[in-house]
């Protein structure tokens, strides 16, 4: 299931309705939601999961499920999948616990202050990209075309910019290409560029005055225009 040019790639899609809706200003509405967020963070930090990370795992969801699920429902999905892949939990374990909870069983909390310290330390630590190289594939001011491509797995190159011509505005640093690094491949970092596109190049002349869209794109995604 490393095939994720999926519905998560939403730039420019129609039909989803208004942005501003009642309650939408809150980060979450239910107490379980930030707890699922925390569990996903802990799965990564404590090495309890396996396979691609939470994000790539969520992108592998069935498209109808992805769209129907709430945001933290997707996180719950990825948490479970990553635990299952590593064998930390087995199929049926969650369902069995649901039954116990529904039967009224009360589960004692598990305290581990050191684990709490570790995750707080981790969340307070930045992991910056490596510094920009003196000489990279592209230079600020250069025109580039995003490759027309059809990645067979996780990618950070959205469909709506593929084939479009933009201008390099800055070099952000170097980073490993997610299309391969996500799956554990040992690869060298490559430059990441800030690239600007005119709305007319992306979408044609539209109903709004022209605007600019900027993305951070790995060198592999582009060719000279």
């Amino acid at each position, binding site marked *: 299931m490393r095939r994720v040019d999926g519905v*998560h790639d*939403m*730039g*420019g*899609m129609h039909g989803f309705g*208004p942005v*501003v809706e009642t309650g*939408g*200003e809150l*980060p*979450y509405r*239910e107490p*379980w939601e930030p*707890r699922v*967020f*925390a*569990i996903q963070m*802990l799965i990564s930090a404590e090495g*309890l999961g396996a396979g691609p990370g939470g994000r790539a795992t969520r992108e592998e969801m069935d498209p109808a499920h992805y769209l129907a699920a*709430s*945001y933290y*429902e997707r996180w*719950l999905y990825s948490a479970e999948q990553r*635990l299952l892949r590593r064998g930390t*939990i087995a199929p049926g374990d*969650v369902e069995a*616990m*649901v039954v*116990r*909870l*529904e039967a009224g069983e009360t*589960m*004692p*909390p598990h*305290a581990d202050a050191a*684990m709490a310290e*570790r*995750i707080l330390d981790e*969340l*307070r*630590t*930045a*992991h*910056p*990209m490596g510094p920009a190289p003196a000489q990279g594939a592209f230079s600020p001011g250069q025109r580039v075309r995003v490759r027309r491509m059809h990645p067979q797995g996780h990618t*950070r190159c*959205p469909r*709506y910019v593929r084939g479009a011509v933009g201008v390099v505005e800055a070099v*952000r640093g170097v*980073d490993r290409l997610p299309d391969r690094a996500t799956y554990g491949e040992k690869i060298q970092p490559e430059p*990441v560029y*800030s690239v600007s596109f005119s709305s007319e190049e*992306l979408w044609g002349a*539209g109903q*709004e*005055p022209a*605007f*600019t869209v900027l*993305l*951070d794109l790995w060198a592999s995604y582009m060719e000279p225009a």
Partner: protein
Amino acid sequence: MSAGHGHHHHERPASAVELRARALEALLAERGLVSTDAIDAVVELYENDIGPQNGAAVVGRAWVDDAYRERLLADGNSAIAELGFGGAEADNLVAVANTPTVHNLIVCTLCSCYPWPLLGLPPTWYKSPPYRARAVSEPRAVLREFGVELGAEVEIRVWDSSAEVRYLVVPMRPEGTEGMSETELAALVTRDCMVGTALPRL
């Protein structure tokens, strides 16, 4: 404060997904794999310590201190570290400044990337399909929904957070705030101002 441990008493019955979430937590706690207090700590971190007040402090400082503003726009990570901020999802912070002719808007079309250490966890609308789909294709229509109308002379620059860079919009300091303190100014800076879907108001 642990879900899955019988502390929650809702008026309505728990949904299937809530039950499942509580079951997963209970399962990992029972096996000693994930500690309840670590979960509590993460939740409380983003509910109490980390939120838009951090970003607002950065913007407030930038409004009163031109040298800080320059450092912020040149090297976001170092500048926010001066105020004690940084961490996961601000690994590479880039601050972008609004001007009379440029308005910046932040989105993540593929996911929900967002500068947690400065703004906390993102609002639901930021993570939802309509915003992810429309911000890059019809930003003025989106801004209009938020009550923001910009003149035709303003270039909108939409930043799609496609890599590990995270963005902070530095809005323009409103007129009529000449006598205000840094703290008073920071209080004008809402979360949405720093995403680009609102403008600071007196």
